[in-house]
């Protein structure tokens, strides 16, 4: 298994984390291709999580934009986002490895809820690290995790958000590696997490490719997905990468003002080393990681999975930007035209489409990865309603 995508990736971790990473890689070799594992995972994905997800044609939205938009409906999955694809896969693998506990980081709480959920289902215990700022702004998800039986640890140092929750989860894993599996939430971090998570999320593009074949007899012209750490996007791109499909990742530009904190390391950062990987990173000249910002907590991360940095460097995927206001426009347009409340993360992909509408040829077939549902974001959206109106 390769640890690098071009010059990105790697395993920049303390020596004490190398043995568990090697153990994980061995377990992947043994179990992932195994028939029993595959059928157990399929059963959980289909009968517990709700796969396959529909590919929804958006007639009114398409008319407004001038091209055909179909949504890959990850928002319809159990727990409300694509995060459960990965959580189920890793939890099952952890069980095969004889681990009894899952540890995870969470920002918005979507991955934390997914992990707490699958841990309950598979009889594992779960410890979720969450920045204290996020604990405050995502109260409901904290309560959800607790009701599901998980322990939520509030992290009150550093930026008190996702970045520091990952640091703390890594420290916890160092100490408890014998019994604990670190269920990393996105296609980033030290090898083998980027390939592991990509593998579990690529079911998104596998289903989508087949659905497009059935519906229009070919692939879409364009696939658009929001990029936080990069898991829903790499999952949505994976099976289209070898095909002639325009792939667009959308990073969060924050408020969009000059010099504001943002979550767009590919567009606005430079290569650096954080959380075990070498990838694009928002940082100061002396290598200190900058705080990130986005209206959507799930995109609020200063780096990105190494495969995205690579796909960007070779020009295979375009990475655009959408700011907070554009995301809110995407949110309200989808709500109004199709009766679907998207999460603020995929709202960035929709916002990018609105802004770039004129550049997309009429009658193009465009797929948007609708990675999650918007219920979790209603408070934030309501408090920004003014921005939508202006």
């Amino acid at each position, binding site marked *: 298994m390769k640890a690098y995508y071009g010059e990105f990736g790697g395993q*920049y971790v*303390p020596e004490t984390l190398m043995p568990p990473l090697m153990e994980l890689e061995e377990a992947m070799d043994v179990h992932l291709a195994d028939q029993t594992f595959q059928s157990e995972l399929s059963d959980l994905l289909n009968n517990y999580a709700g796969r396959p997800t529909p590919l929804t044609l958006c007639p009114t939205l398409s008319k407004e934009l001038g091209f055909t938009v179909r949504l890959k409906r990850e928002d319809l999955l159990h727990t409300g986002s694509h995060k459960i694809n990965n959580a189920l896969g890793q939890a099952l693998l952890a069980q095969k490895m004889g681990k009894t506990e899952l540890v995870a980081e969470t920002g918005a709480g979507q991955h934390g809820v997914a992990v707490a959920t699958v841990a309950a289902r598979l009889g594992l215990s779960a410890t979720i690290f969450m920045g204290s700022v996020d604990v405050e702004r995502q109260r409901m998800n904290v309560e959800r995790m607790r009701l599901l039986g998980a322990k939520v640890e509030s992290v009150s140092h*550093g930026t008190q958000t996702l970045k520091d929750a990952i640091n703390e989860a890594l*420290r916890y894993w*160092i100490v408890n590696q014998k019994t604990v599996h670190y269920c990393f939430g996105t296609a980033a971090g030290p090898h083998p997490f980027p390939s592991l998570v990509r593998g579990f999320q690529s079911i998104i593009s596998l289903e989508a490719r087949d659905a497009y074949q059935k519906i229009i007899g070919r692939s879409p012209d364009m696939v658009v997905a929001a990029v936080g750490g990069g898991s829903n996007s790499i999952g949505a791109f994976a099976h289209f990468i070898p095909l002639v499909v325009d792939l667009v990742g959308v990073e969060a530009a924050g408020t969009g003002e000059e010099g504001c904190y943002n979550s767009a390391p590919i567009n606005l950062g430079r290569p650096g*080393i954080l*959380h075990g990987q070498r990838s694009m990173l928002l940082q100061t000249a*002396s*290598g*200190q990681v900058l705080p990130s910002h986005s209206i959507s907590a799930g995109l609020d991360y200063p780096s990105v999975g190494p495969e995205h940095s690579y796909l960007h460097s070779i020009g295979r995927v375009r990475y655009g930007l959408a700011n907070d206001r554009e995301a809110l426009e995407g949110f309200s347009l989808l709500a109004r035209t199709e009766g679907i409340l998207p999460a603020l993360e995929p709202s960035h992909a929709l916002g990018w489409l609105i802004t770039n509408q004129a550049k997309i040829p009429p009658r193009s077939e465009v797929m948007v990865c609708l990675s999650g549902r918007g219920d979790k974001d209603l408070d934030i959206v309501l408090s920004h309603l003014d921005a939508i109106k202006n």
Partner: protein
Amino acid sequence: MSAQSKLTAAILAATQKKRPARVPFLTAGCPNVNRFWECLVELEENGADIIEIGVPFSDPVADGPLIAAASQKAIEDGVDLAWILEGLKKIKLKVPVVLMSYANPLAQYAWDRSEGANLSQRSLASLKVLAHDFRPYVSGVICPDVPLEESGPFHLAFDGTGIDLIVLVGPNTSSERMAKYARLAKGYVYVVSVLGTTGVRRDLSLEARASLARARAAFDLPLALGFGLSEPKQLAALNKSPDAVIFGSALMSHIINGGSVKDFMAPWLEAFPFELR
């Protein structure tokens, strides 16, 4: 080879005196940007054989709360690698200095000072700049997030320059892995005493004993034990003392709370009560 290493020599000099070498660790800028430099001089005057200086990083995953907080404060006070090198140039310590830095501050320092505008030209190959700027104030470098698998570019940058890239091993590093490290190791070997992060611990774990024994068999270099150490009596838990002891959090906590370097070092200066090796 290792015989020419200033670090190996400093530890072997202590061995001759039948005591472990004393290796204090201080995060740069701790307890504040002025007192930090005074502390280095006082450490030298009070028996330090080697001094390790921590380059602050915003996301120090191998560190416990004390060093993480000290790093955060140092960053806020403007401390970075360039500031450390400038200060070292001025104070001219006699004991050898080792910089402990996560990979990114090193990589970005090098990036900013290397030729070539495009991305691939400025990859990790640019680390060579470091050895040039570190000499002659720095005798060794420890990168807590650079394991064997990622150490290639760092060895390329430092090997043969008189700056030792120090290897770290832990309680879960197998003998096979230690053997691989042994082919690259220089200066001394940093043996991490616990599966955990930096921070004061009252007792040394049983694991430490086993790790030291495995490391002794695998390496031809002095062994330095670190993570959790504060005073000599902790070493009673081992049947053989390591060749060097590294104390960081305990020293820093003492200094942050207004204690003197002299008082902290005093117990380490008394006649060493245990058997060496």
